[in-house]
């Protein structure tokens, strides 16, 4: 039995080893970094979940949502209200928030079918802008502008024991939340991977590349597009719910327009239609503003009067530049760059240079 397993491991493609290493690194991370940093990494993983969801929608089904922050808000408030008002165990509310948000996303996807890509972007952007003021209104449920404070759970005894046995230290709440998040992230990435490499993924990609052709080859275009919306919202809902757990507090200002932009940055940076992309994109999009906030005050050449301005403007400027530069020069993001770099290297090694195309001058192309 174990030799079969060993055989299998030996025959697995190298990328499986890479995945295993990444998972182990992520699992070991809280034991080597501070509790505060652990909490930050948990939030980065949460962002990765939401970005994975958005990636399914944008990268695979070709529908652009600029309002995924709104779905995160929905998931967060569903969990918070269930935990706050109905005294439910927060962990139980996480799947509920995901499923409800997914259902609403599915319903949202039905009118979205009628919209062109451009109009969908426009409507979802408007939704993202309006979200904070929509949250404020039902005060008795959402706590209005003050938001809701959430009780963060202590690690349960078995987890504490196991952690202590392995690391020799006591597990903190932040570490426990980190592991919950990691578990959800791994589960959801695994789900996405399975979903996207089989029929649904192929169908969605076919739709993205040409709806008419997809429909002609028997793909249920409307069905898959709304399904993509639903799944994508499900991911965002889970992420939102976890976000409340990780921060212990949510308010309308937790979900500004810039959150939706941050998600988009993550998708674009990581690479559209890629599985590892969202993780890389999330780490990038999450830590960029944080790092810039820490870096700026440490720089003596930046006058202290404007340091706070620089801190605030820095992420916006860099997000903007990154979106533009990647879209112009590297439309497949980090993963795309790595892949094309790898392919180029392979070609170089094989000695086959890029064939020079002949002189082809003259004006604008028309085909």
């Amino acid at each position: 039995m174990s030799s079969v397993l060993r055989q299998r491991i030996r025959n697995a493609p190298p990328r499986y080893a890479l995945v295993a290493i990444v998972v182990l690194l992520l699992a070991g991370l809280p034991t080597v970094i501070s509790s505060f940093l652990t909490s930050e990494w948990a939030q980065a993983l949460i962002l990765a979940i939401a970005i994975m969801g958005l990636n399914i929608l944008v990268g695979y089904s070709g529908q652009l949502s600029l309002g995924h922050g709104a779905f995160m808000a929905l998931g967060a408030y569903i969990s918070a209200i269930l935990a706050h008002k109905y005294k439910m165990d927060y962990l139980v509310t996480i799947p509920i928030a995901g499923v409800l948000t997914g259902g609403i996303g599915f319903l949202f996807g039905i009118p979205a079918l009628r919209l062109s890509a451009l109009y969908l972007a426009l409507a979802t952007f408007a939704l993202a802008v309006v979200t904070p003021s929509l949250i404020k209104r039902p005060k008795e449920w959402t706590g209005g502008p003050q938001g809701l404070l959430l009780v963060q759970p202590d690690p349960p005894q078995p987890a504490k024991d196991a952690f202590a046995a392995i690391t020799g230290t006591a597990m903190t709440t932040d570490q426990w939340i980190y592991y919950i998040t990691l578990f959800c992230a791994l589960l959801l990435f695994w789900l996405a991977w399975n979903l996207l490499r089989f029929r649904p993924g192929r169908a969605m990609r076919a739709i993205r590349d040409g709806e008419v052709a997809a429909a002609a080859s028997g793909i249920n275009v409307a069905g898959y597009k709304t399904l993509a919306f639903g799944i994508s919202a499900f991911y965002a809902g889970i992420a939102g719910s976890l976000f409340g757990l990780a921060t212990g507090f949510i308010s309308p200002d937790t979900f500004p327009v810039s959150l939706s932009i941050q998600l988009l940055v993550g998708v674009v940076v990581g690479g559209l239609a890629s599985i590892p992309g969202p993780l890389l994109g999330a780490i990038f999009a999450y830590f960029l503003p944080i790092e810039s906030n820490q870096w700026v005050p440490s720089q003596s050449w930046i006058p202290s009067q404007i340091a706070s301005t620089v801190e605030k403007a820095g992420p916006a400027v860099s997000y903007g530049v990154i979106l533009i530069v990647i879209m112009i020069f590297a439309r497949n993001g980090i993963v795309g760059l790595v892949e094309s770099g790898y392919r180029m290297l392979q070609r170089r090694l094989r000695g086959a240079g890029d064939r020079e195309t002949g002189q082809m001058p003259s004006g604008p192309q028309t085909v």
Partner: protein
Amino acid sequence: MTALLELEGVHAGYGPTSVLHGVSLTVPEGGAVSLLGANGAGKTTTLRAITGGVHWSGDIRFGGRSLRRMHTEDIVSRGIAHVPEGRGICTELTVDENLRLGAHMRRDGAELRKDYDRVFAYFPVLKERRHLSASTLSGGEQQMLALARALLMKPRLMLLDEPSLGLAPMVVRAIFEIIRTINRESKVAVLLVEQSARIALDLSSHAYVLEVGRVAVEGDSDELKGNESVRRSYLGY
């Protein structure tokens, strides 16, 4: 007669597919030349190469100067009016606006007014419909508008891509009559692409027959008309 337009070994294509494999042809100053051949022989591509609508290699010279690496806008402003397949009418605009678009590069007010008069003399129907949307015109009228608009560019050479396409025989005859007049009276050279060889040969003095991207036959229009075997094998009538 001096050469106005010269193509020398022009290769062209769309992306990886090449369509022209070394086309050479000459249009003399004020001449009328037709470019014949079956569907897909590369007639339209030849015209598009001339006005920079497709990548090409080899050489294309207009008035003695190479058009290499020039943009469409600059090529046409040197005096080439290209009436594309499907006529290129701006249906969002009125008839008058389409005409003004043709004349938008002109700075010679008095001359231009004369040209307007001439164009309306050729195509009275356009004067009547001046203020209507171009989308309300019939196919024949749209072809007339395209020709009129091209004339207002004050070209030295007109490239006409299948002016007979989709028109009734009566209308075709009228339009070719006017093309002939334009060619003779205004000394505008014409390079005419046509599927229906007969009407084209009637108009032109010289003709080239393209076959899969190469010039298969060239010669005097009358000669080609008279040559039974050419007619059978290439012109299909």
